[in-house]
């Protein structure tokens, strides 16, 4: 999993066009911080991680198959897809259950986690992130870079006013990504649902909407 090289080159070129005198290495360093903030605040980089529960054990260390640092737990499900409402993540990367399983599970449970960029970075000093990051959100990432670079002091590209403008656009981009992730990139979807006890999988005796399902 890595950023699309063509998108990276275009991003660096666009940034240097708008930041007279900026170094490529400086932009790459800022890109790391921008992506960290982007993923951390938007929750848009997720991964489903399987683990096998054991009777009496409440804590399970999650090992992401892909890169990135686990920062948040969205939820945990057993092998039948039933949400485990007593799961939490006090320690980053470790899912904990209030109630330990009564018996060894026969199939893997799933934990869905939020991730952000972390070290190591690539040989080209680029952060490791999903390839869709720049394909979809390059405009917002560029705003983040421009805002942070222009906010630096005593540089040829320092510009307090434009820094505030670009950082505002960057925060808007984070919100867009956050909502899109919550709705699984489905237009018109709702990001909530009734608890299982009140919900119905049939359309009988209730009101059916076009997008009745949330995705978490």
């Amino acid at each position: 999993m890595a950023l699309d090289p063509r998108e990276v080159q275009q991003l660096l070129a666009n940034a240097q066009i708008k930041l007279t005198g900026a170094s490529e290495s400086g932009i790459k360093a800022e890109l790391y911080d921008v992506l960290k903030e982007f993923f951390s605040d938007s929750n848009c980089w997720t991964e489903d991680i399987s683990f096998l529960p054991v009777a009496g054990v409440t804590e399970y260390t999650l090992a992401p198959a892909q890169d990135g640092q686990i920062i948040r737990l969205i939820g945990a499900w057993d092998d039948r897809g039933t949400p485990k409402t007593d799961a939490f993540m006090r320690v980053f990367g470790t899912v904990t259950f209030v109630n330990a399983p009564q018996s060894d599970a026969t199939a893997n449970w799933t934990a869905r986690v939020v991730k952000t960029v972390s070290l190591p970075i690539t040989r080209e000093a680029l952060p490791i992130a999903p390839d869709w990051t720049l394909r979809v959100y390059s405009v917002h990432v560029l705003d983040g870079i421009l805002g942070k670079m222009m906010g630096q002091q005593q540089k040829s590209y320092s510009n307090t006013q434009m820094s505030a403008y670009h950082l505002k656009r960057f925060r808007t981009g984070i919100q867009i990504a956050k909502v899109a992730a919550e709705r699984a990139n489905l237009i018109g979807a709702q990001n909530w649902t009734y608890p299982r006890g009140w919900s119905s999988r049939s359309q009988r005796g209730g009101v059916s909407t076009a997008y009745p399902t949330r995705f978490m």
Partner: protein
Amino acid sequence: MPPPNLMTVDSMIRGVRTLLLDKVRPYRYSDTSLIAGLNIALNEGRRLRPDVFLVRYGIEVPQYEQISGAILPVEAQFRLAFEYGIAGHALMRDQEDIQDQRSTIFLANFENMLVGRRPVIPLEGGTPTPKNKGRTQPGQAGGEG
């Protein structure tokens, strides 16, 4: 020999010798003194623009002991600034007033190009005379306003 493009230590020193009008042996400025100027300019560049020397994890400022074909790990857009910095340092050792002025201009341009301020423009060419000695333009380093 190809014209200097400032990409290597050797090319950078040849470029500096062009600025110093010191291309014919025996040189007025020894290789060692110019390499020292290069190292000092790199250190000064690290102070002004640490991002230029960013590597994968951290900041590394290269230092050299001799002229070689070693590539200078400085982006192309900043190499001219370092050429000016080396020339300015070399000229500082001269006692002549005209060299002091050129040294000041080179060093000011070195700094200004890195931090993006307006370049210092030489007041005028030729040997300073009592008439123009000490005059500077507004905004010029060491100027009187």
